[in-house]
């Protein structure tokens, strides 16, 4: 199963709405990087509102995709992390400190605009 990646002006928007297995997560990583490359997008929002579990593997894939996109020159913001997911990640010992986050899609777009226009 492929996760759809939508283009909006200079941004890419992704809403993850399925229970991510490892293979889908890795494919998503590749798809997003190649879409950034093809579209020349400068910002990406990955919305996790519908994701109710992030384990250490998925967290690593998401953290890596942020660093990889950064290398290519695109800023990524993760949005909509649920309270239960945030609590579980901290219990697991995963802090994702270098990953930009925002409350929801709207705040994520504002954050991207601020980061990219300054």
């Amino acid at each position, binding site marked *: 199963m492929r996760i759809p990646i939508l283009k909006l002006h200079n941004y890419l928007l992704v809403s993850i709405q399925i229970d991510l297995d490892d293979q889908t997560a890795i494919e998503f990583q590749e798809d997003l990087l190649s879409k950034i490359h093809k579209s020349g997008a400068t910002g990406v929002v990955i919305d996790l509102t519908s994701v*109710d579990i992030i384990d*250490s593997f998925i967290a690593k894939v998401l953290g890596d995709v942020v660093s990889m996109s950064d290398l290519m020159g695109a800023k990524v913001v993760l949005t909509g992390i649920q309270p239960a997911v945030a*609590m579980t990640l901290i*219990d697991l*010992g*995963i802090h994702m400190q270098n990953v930009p986050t925002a409350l929801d899609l709207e705040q994520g777009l504002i954050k991207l605009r601020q980061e990219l226009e300054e």
Partner: protein
Amino acid sequence: MSKTQSCVHIKKEWDIVGARQMGREKAKELGFGTVNQARIATAISELARNIYLYAGTGKISYEVVNDMNKLGLKIIASDDGPGIADISKSMEDGFSTSGGLGAGLPGVKRLMDDFDIESEEGKGTTITAIKWVRK
């Protein structure tokens, strides 16, 4: 003490998702709240991935435990894999032999209430973890 048991066999990567979904369902049935459902599902995901990565195959069993006045969900992750050479090292934060985040076992211990690990090199590993329903 009454118990009902069921299990999910871990043979392919997708079974990791199957195992945690089953865990979440059981947790919901037992009356766990959303946060503890997420903790249980995440713990199962870590345990199932360990089986898949290190042992290849194994199983996750679910047991409802009714101990005195306490109700809980017991997760048993068992495999006949290579076993863990140094258990105390595997329980250190940040230790991993697979290039993962190393959040595995110590993370699972923090997510659950009771945690027990038995492993013998060359014979396999059994990890038992329980989450109690808070009244």
